[in-house]
């Protein structure tokens, strides 16, 4: 694992004091979401729906790690997807740095996600035909960052996560832990304010998972991190743990 901190990877242009103070980066208020309720035009009106979230309220301040726990189907992933703007809740508001995601168009939500949210998936979801460096630089392509700057930024981030010697490797040539570190570097490439991680150690052995958790903890010192997991070791790095059950907030500790 790298001894170099990923905190230093934040760009100087955004290194401003107002972004460093412990403001609320993510706020969910009265969020309810029903799957099947926003079906296509050919679906019948009496289609059965599944309620994934019921009146969920949650704050994630900048500089903190919030863990989400709960059994399968409790709504952890749905909360992460709502924060990332991958879905719009049926009711309630999801604010990302003061912007209500539900009020945005699809294109605006995509832009907001690109600029302010980094996503780490359980199964990494790296593009198999791109090198580690190209995977990390991927979000910067759509941001219009010139090629040389993209390569520099991706190389810096890979060095920061301890993969400076793996920049040209394809994902298939990397171990599970290395792939997850590449995924974390990719999530950091646009210098986002919020990181959402869905079971980030779910596919890793204990030792490798511990490395990834250290990395996430390091990342969380300057950003808001929301981690969903079943794993006690993963939740142990969180400053606060929110327990979900049947789509409701059951406990906060």
């Amino acid at each position, binding site marked *: 694992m790298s001894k170099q901190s990923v905190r230093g990877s934040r760009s100087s242009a955004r290194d401003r004091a107002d972004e460093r103070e412990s403001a609320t980066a993510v706020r969910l208020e009265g969020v309810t979401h029903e799957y099947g309720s926003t079906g296509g035009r050919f679906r019948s009106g009496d289609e059965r729906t599944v309620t994934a979230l019921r009146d969920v309220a949650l704050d994630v301040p900048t500089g903190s790690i919030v863990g989400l726990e709960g059994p399968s189907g409790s709504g952890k992933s749905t909360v992460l997807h709502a924060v990332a703007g*991958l879905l719009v809740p049926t009711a309630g508001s999801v604010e990302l740095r003061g912007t209500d995601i539900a009020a945005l168009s699809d*294109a605006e939500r995509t832009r907001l996600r690109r600029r302010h949210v980094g996503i780490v998936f359980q199964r990494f979801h790296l593009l198999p*035909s791109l090198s580690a460096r190209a995977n990390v630089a991927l979000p910067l392509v759509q941001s219009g960052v010139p090629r040389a700057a993209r390569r520099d930024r991706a190389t810096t981030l890979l060095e920061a996560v301890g993969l400076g010697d793996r920049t040209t490797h394809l994902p298939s040539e990397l171990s599970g832990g290395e792939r997850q570190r590449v995924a974390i570097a990719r999530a950091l490439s646009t210098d986002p304010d919020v990181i959402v991680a869905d079971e980030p150690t779910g596919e890793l052995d204990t030792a490798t998972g511990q490395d990834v958790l250290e990395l996430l903890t390091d990342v969380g010192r300057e950003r808001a991190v929301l981690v969903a997991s079943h794993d006690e070791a993963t939740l142990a790095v969180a400053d606060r743990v929110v327990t979900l059950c049947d789509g409701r907030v059951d406990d906060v500790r």
Partner: protein
Amino acid sequence: MSDEAADPPVDAEPRRRTRWRGVIGLTLSRWWRRATRTTRGRITSTVAAVALTIAFLVVVTGVALALADGGMATADDADVRITPEESGTLSSVDGVEGPRLGATNERAAAIRSRDGVEHASPVLVETARLESTDGDPRTVRLIGFVPDGESRTVAGLPTTALEPGDPHYANGSYDGPRNRELVLSPTAAERLDATAGDELSVSMGGAERAGGGTPSVTVTAVADGGAGGSGAPIALVHLSELQSFSGAETGELADRLLLWGEADAARSAATDAYPAAAVEVAGGTDPSTLFEDGLAFATSVIALLVGVTVCASFVATTMGMTVDEDRRTLAVLESVGFPTRSRLAVVAVSTGITTVVGSIVGIGLGAAGIVAVNAVAGATVAPGTVAHFHPVFVPYAIGVALVAGLVAVPYPLAVAARTAVLEEVAR
């Protein structure tokens, strides 16, 4: 958004250009890695399907071009051909007799004396009736030519069986000794039931005018199947004797003039001798002739339609399947902030690259196919070339492949647009 104003001021247009360059570069690099490392089989099969379709198109269009360029009566191995400029004639009757070149014997002699020209001879084509002593008269196309002893092919027939030179011409007096030689194509020999050494009598409109009754000629050779197997009843004779038979000696008329030698020198000599005539260098077939020949044009149009249809079907199917397998990649692109148009651009550019690469491979295969077709035809049924390759085939084939790609691209785009990001990333 709250922090939009905090972004560094940038010019939107350069950023947009950089973004699109990045998307295209990303797609190119991803396509290359997939073609060479990760999904080699799928990309190779799509490229091969496009390449075979384009190769088929190139070969059929090459055959059509050769068809339009002239049949067996013009099949020769000359390096340069001089023909009368069609637009310079006033004849409004089609198929009676085209314009001819004048003073051909004299000018051919002048051309032969030029550096870089090995041989030059006028070619006169006339229809005559030949009759063997114990058979019926048969109509045969006589080809008048001045042989030089070298192995050459004129009208699909070898010229070596004729005595070199043209003594009857006698510097334009047409009173020299006649060779009375004839080389028959296999079809003509079969119809006349004639073999080498047989005597044949010749009759045509000009024979009576030439006086002296019906002239006779001796069959010196019958071309073998490989060299003269065009199926046409034709025969090769000395030029001046045919001119005398037909009355074409006045004005030393001929249908065309063939030159052998260095292409540039021969073309220069041809242009000097006949500045108003059409000078065609071998291999420089004019594709516009396709539009003038009904059968050739129809053949090439059918090849085009079949090519576009088959190519588009292959591309749509294989790219659609590729995109279907690639839904997770599209979902990941969405999750990292690629909007719909950028994701569709990745799919469209991938499809475009596949078709362009397939078309380039197909052009190579098509060129090889034309060589193979000519080799097979030369060894079996026809001398010379039965299919031509022309440089214009390169942009033509790429254009056809791109049109096929455009026809095909809505399907992979539709598959891509239906991708549900949550379904894919949640797996």
